[in-house]
């Protein structure tokens, strides 16, 4: 049972709360789950509200705050949170070194930002993740769908098909038991492409509109595990003159993204451009969109050149060391730099397969 003890906290409009305040002392209302019709009728007669308004008040009480986000309000203990987080699998990047330093890949339920100069491979990593999130569960994947918001126009079908074909080939080479062979039947380039939902946003208004509509879309497509925005910087950098408005809008975007990441258990991956900042007479290359935006992502990944090597640095993360790994962009996609080393996803599988093939091991 809930009383109206704190209707001030409800987000109904002022007129309603005024009426509620007046009637509060005369009638104590209890929300009784089993008799909604009786409740509604007596509520209307007591307060003199219209039926529509009364329904709205009751809905607000039940929803525990009446926000659009539904049942996300239960508090959890740290232990429950830990268990919940351990259940969620991460999305592998196909670079074993990067996966290792990220503790298994790009985490679900968090925002990861990828920054870097043009041509370093931000889009390549995004496209790779859009394919990787679909890797079947029996191969250690997440087996989800992906929502790809393209603001730069750099989502080119040719390249996605390349990366998808390479991932499909990789999995079919690894398939050893019946379950995995069955999974490779359905894990084809066509299904990979049909599981990528694509939206093209041309400016910041379209991006904001899309983000408003996204919760509904995510409810309709519960298999979506990854949201990519490539890039956040591009539409917002045009608001060059209205910096305060830009900061306000970006804060809103950050809030929306983290709410969606938690409510729908999705991984949010966004890319950001770099910009030159002059400090102490020296020019530095720093992520764009300002200091304030730096708080929005949970993990910030910086991709940079060092001579002819490509390096990925985790330079903001609450749970990872600041590490630096080398990677490369091959025709197949985002990969480890050192080809002689076995991909990480292969190693544990080889061990288990060997033990399964060995009769002594399985019988003992």
């Amino acid at each position: 049972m809930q009383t109206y003890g704190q209707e001030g906290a409800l987000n109904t409009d002022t007129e309603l709360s005024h009426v509620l305040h007046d009637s509060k002392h005369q009638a104590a209302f209890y929300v009784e789950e089993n008799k909604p019709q009786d409740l509604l009728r007596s509520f209307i007669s007591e307060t003199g509200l219209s039926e529509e308004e009364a329904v709205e008040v009751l809905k607000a009480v039940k929803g525990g705050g009446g926000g659009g986000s539904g049942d996300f309000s239960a508090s959890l203990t740290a232990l429950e949170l830990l268990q919940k987080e351990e259940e969620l699998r991460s999305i592998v990047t196909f670079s074993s070194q990067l996966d290792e330093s990220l503790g298994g890949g790009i985490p679900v339920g968090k925002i990861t930002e990828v920054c870097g100069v043009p041509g370093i491979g931000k889009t390549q990593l995004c496209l790779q993740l859009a394919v990787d999130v679909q890797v079947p569960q029996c191969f250690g994947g997440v087996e989800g769908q992906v929502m790809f918001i393209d603001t730069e126009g750099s989502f080119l079908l040719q390249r996605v098909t390349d990366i998808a074909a390479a991932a499909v080939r990789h999995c079919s080479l690894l398939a050893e038991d019946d379950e995995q062979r069955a999974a490779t039947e359905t894990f084809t380039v066509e299904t990979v492409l049909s599981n990528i939902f694509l939206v093209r946003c041309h400016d910041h208004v379209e991006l904001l509109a899309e983000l408003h509509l996204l919760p509904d879309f995510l409810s309709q497509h519960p298999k979506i595990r990854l949201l990519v925005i490539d890039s956040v910087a591009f539409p917002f950098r045009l608001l060059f003159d209205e910096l305060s408005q830009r900061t306000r809008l970006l804060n809103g975007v950050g809030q929306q993204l983290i709410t969606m990441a938690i409510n729908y258990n999705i991984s949010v991956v966004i890319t950001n451009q770099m910009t030159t900042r002059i400090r102490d007479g020296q020019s530095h290359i720093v992520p764009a969109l300002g200091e304030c935006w730096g708080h929005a992502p949970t993990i910030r990944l910086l991709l940079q050149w060092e001579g002819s090597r490509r390096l990925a640095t985790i330079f903001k993360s609450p749970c990872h060391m600041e590490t630096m790994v080398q990677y490369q962009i091959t025709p197949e996609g985002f990969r480890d730099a050192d080809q002689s080393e076995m991909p990480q996803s292969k190693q544990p599988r080889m061990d288990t397969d060997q033990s399964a093939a060995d009769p002594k091991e399985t019988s003992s």
Partner: protein
Amino acid sequence: MNCDQLLLHPRVSAALRRVQLKSVQDVVCASAPDLQRLTGLSNSDVQQLITAAAAACRRHPPITAQQLQHGVSGVRLGCPVLDRLLRGGLPVGGITELAGESGTGKTQVGLQLSLSVQYPAEHGGLGAGALYVCTEDSFPIKRLHQLIGEQVCLRSDVPADLVNSLRFSDHVYIEHAADLDSLQVCLTRRARLLLARGLVRLIVVDSVAALFRAEFQADDWLERNRRLLTFSSTLHHLSQEFSTPVLCINQVTDVFSQSHNSMGPSSSTVSPALGLAWANQVMVRLMMRRLQGMVIRGEQSSALRRLEVVFAPHLARDGQDTAVWTEGLRGVESWTSNRK
């Protein structure tokens, strides 16, 4: 778009009229608590309003990658070797940049594309003309006529009577822009008109660097970046709205050791001009370099050049030796090249 066009509860529409909130853009950009405070509407009303406004701003609902058009890949250059390097030519949406020192053959590429875009789709064109914006020099009209005359020779894959039936010079629209304001006017007015009428499906700007380098001093970089962003966003909008390829020719600047490694390995001592602000706006970056040596083919000889892919979402970092002949730019396969 206007809020009046949305299907809303009369109560909501009345509240919007009262606070004079007219455009859906303003609604989408405002936060829900702000709207609630401003209009005095209830939370659920405001949510409905935002959803309706957001739906009005959205051009297309999400589609799957499979539903994307496989059709047109881009404008081919007309040389199979170079088209292989570019995986089918210049991509249809987005800005392609071609940078290089003077005399490397950048303008040749621009001219060649202005002609090849006029072929029908089955021969690697888009079946429409080209808009060529000159900011640096006067338009090389003689060279264009020479190229038109030699089209039969360059495009041996296309039936000769089709090549002869196309009236190339009627479909190259030439604009001269001597300063940034006239460039902006040219793009926002005339280019839009030509594109909307379907007369043009390619924009070449030769070159972007000239005006931006000439009009601003070193300490005006903030203003320069602002103008640069306005310019590139105009190009982006045109390119997307009419699915038109855009080629921007750029000059180069010498690099000093410090900034050198941030933009990646480069095989030369120059990098494209206009810095990071411009580089962020470019989807495909190509560079032309002069190499040591000459290529000889019959009577003609050409300096050896190299066309390099610096970055592109769909291309590998690669390069191809090329040479400029009377009929245009062609890739030089290593076994046919006859270096001296």
